[in-house]
């Protein structure tokens, strides 16, 4: 261990990175299937079935990244886990009930008697909405330092709406990739309608974060950091412009590059997420608790790390396998 320097330094940092990557993968992957749920009311009955077929084989594994992310928070930063989740007690409960509703609606909507199907469709939408709103709310509260004051809650309500629209946007880009014909055209319209939520959300958080904390302000707006950080907002702006241009001309002939909007959206989320991670480092509970203060004992982190080194590449490999097996346009999901 000592080859890398002080394990009480590099282990918490490694786990913060791992947790960050898990959260990012989660918001992209579960983001698209939550988004599909949010778009449900805009689709007709057959389109709903087709949209479910586009996410059916993946959603279970997508949601597992949330378990891994909160699991890493739990096991690597136990003190922070308690502080954050106790402060967010109510939105967490709303999110969990939302996740329950939508997770089981996947199964029930096709297994329950036909007359109940529309109710489970509705449960799928409501569950997705509860999950998205509460995650956006938690994001806002986190940025505001996890204190329940009226302005903070107001800001969190705003980010709740923006993140929800953002999820519906990335969901629409996934449907563009997975669907064809009329549904694909509809999805392009949905994406055009949703991209503004994403832009406003990223802007709101980017503007608010430095003003909540002078520490974060200094991290961004001092020389020379400002210079080498400037590509981040510039890249985001370029991505947004490119996405907008692309959506206006889609679908491309022969349906080539149908994955590009989803890819560009993922890149956009990654830059936004990278910016946030830079702002908050080294704090895991904003301005209160650093990753180093809240980390588990090095010997426990080390034994988790040993497992992670073997397991994470395996997880990534078979995730890729699952996406490969179900590649291409979504087709009818059948057991036989």
């Amino acid at each position, binding site marked *: 261990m000592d080859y890398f320097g002080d394990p009480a330094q590099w282990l918490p940092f490694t786990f913060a990175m791992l947790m960050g990557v898990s959260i990012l993968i989660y918001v992209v992957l579960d983001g698209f299937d939550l988004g599909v749920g949010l778009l449900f009311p805009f689709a007709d009955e*057959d389109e709903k*079935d*087709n949209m479910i*077929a586009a996410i*059916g*084989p993946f959603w*279970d*594994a997508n*949601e*597992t990244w*949330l*378990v*891994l992310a*909160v*699991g*890493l928070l*739990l*096991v690597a930063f*136990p*003190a922070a*886990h*308690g502080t*954050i*989740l*106790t402060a967010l*007690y*109510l939105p*967490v*409960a709303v999110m*969990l*009930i939302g996740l*329950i509703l939508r*997770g*089981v609606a*996947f*199964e*029930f909507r*096709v*297994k*329950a*008697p036909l007359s109940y199907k529309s109710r489970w469709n509705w449960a799928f939408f409501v569950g997705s909405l509860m999950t998205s709103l509460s995650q956006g709310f938690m994001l806002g509260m986190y940025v505001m330092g996890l204190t329940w004051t009226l302005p903070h809650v107001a800001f969190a309500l705003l980010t709740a709406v923006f993140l929800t629209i953002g999820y519906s946007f990335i969901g629409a880009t996934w449907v563009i990739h997975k669907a064809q014909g009329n549904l694909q055209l509809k999805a392009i319209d949905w994406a055009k309608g949703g991209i503004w939520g994403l832009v406003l959300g990223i802007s709101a958080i980017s503007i608010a974060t430095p003003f909540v904390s002078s520490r974060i302000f200094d991290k961004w707006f001092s020389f020379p950091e400002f210079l080498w950080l400037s590509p981040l907002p510039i890249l985001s702006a370029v991505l947004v412009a490119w996405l907008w241009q692309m959506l206006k001309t889609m679908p491309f002939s022969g349906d080539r590059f149908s994955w590009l909007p989803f890819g560009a959206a993922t890149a956009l989320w990654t830059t936004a997420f990278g910016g946030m991670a830079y702002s908050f480092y080294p704090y895991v509970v904003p301005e209160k608790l650093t990753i180093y203060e809240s980390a*588990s*004992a090095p*010997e*426990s982190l080390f*034994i*988790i790390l040993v497992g*992670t080194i073997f*397991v994470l590449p395996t*997880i990534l490999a*078979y*995730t890729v*396998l*699952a996406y490969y*097996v*179900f590649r291409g346009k979504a087709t009818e*999901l*059948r*057991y*036989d």
Partner: protein
Amino acid sequence: MDAFLLSRIQFAANISFHILFPTITIALGWVLLYFRVRFNISKDQRWMDAYMFWVKVFALSFAMGVVSGITMSFQFGTNWPGFMETVGNIAGPLLAYEVMTAFFLEAVFLGIMLFGASRVKPWVHTTATFLVAFGTTMSAFWIIVLNSWMHTPQGYEMIDGVAHATDWWAIVFNPSMPYRFTHMMLASFLTVSFLIAGISAFRILIGGNTAGVKSALRTAIVAAALLMPVQILVGDMHGLNTKEYQPAKVAAMEGIWETQNGADLLLFALPDDDARENRFEIGIPNLASFILTHDWNGEVKGLNEFVTEDGEVMHPRVAPVFWSFRVMVGTGVLMLLTSWAAVAMMARKTANGNARRGVEGLPRLMLFGFVAMSFSGWLATLAGWYTTEIGRQPWLVQGVMTTEMAVADVPAPLVLSTLLAYLAVYAILLAAYIAVIFHLARKASRGETLKPRVPGSGAAVAAVPAE
């Protein structure tokens, strides 16, 4: 009620709801693999029919297990932050290994197992089924390791009130783990046996298309009849292990207040925790001593040994433990008698005396009995977990920290509101789950499983997702 009690009820509600579904998926995964392999070998369509029917129940149960499991992982933080703050160095790696080795494995290969049968080669599909079954079992293993460590902790040292691991081998293979893991695995297989037997009996009773049903029913009944006696033996060994490491729990299970030699086995009693005595005892003389010590006059420690000098009660409330234990044993005995009676009926010779009667030899009353006992495994499993978990109180980690030390400082009304919301959701989902299983059974009997939805309504895509 205070936030502590409400949080306990909320956690109990969540974990009770959650355990119902892993109890089914752990064993059902292996049963599906068995069906799949039987089909690979014999190419007999009946086994594939059985697979296709039960894989739907698996998918439904798996989804219920995943979503309620996510709830659990958050509840550690929202309601019990003290747990991870004190023993996080030990619980953390165990939970991490659970998520990494098991959760992902099953979640990813589930997609291929459910929807991949026509997209991948048969051996890939069989392998995916195996990996899902293996994943659920690994998941159960790590969770049982952590749970057992909370009952019989070892391999750690306390530094400034925080547990630090000293010996991972000792932590993983702690004294109660092998017993608890075996007991739970068998409980899962028995639960699934009775579920398959019950639903198959239901399908025979309503008639119609019964392809694969009789094979499934016979497999389930034979499995139950074979496993039930093993479970009773393992349960007894688990009890002896508990007597050694958690004598207060055993005293509560048996309703024994005073340490005594030749303790009676109480068949019925109303333990009164306030008066610290039993009312209306009916017991079999000396039998409790014999079961627990294998000596008719062996000594069994009483609950009064676990009250400190200043009157602090360091044993669980007796009545819930006492009764949960009896419900578990009673259900188990009923499961034993039913499965053995069914095997005896199936083994009878036919009129011309050449062959065994098999499933045809089961009278209608017996089939109704199996339908009624479809979910008997749930009852026994829940009662068993209540026995062991309530039996550990007031400890959260035996001898290390009490449950009260872990509770979050969340206002009681807030906990009450989320508790009510969870209970409402769980009640609806449980009703829907059971109703849908019977609905699937009726649908399969009508032979509708593999046909498209409703004629004419799916012109655009003709899709029957997840069907």
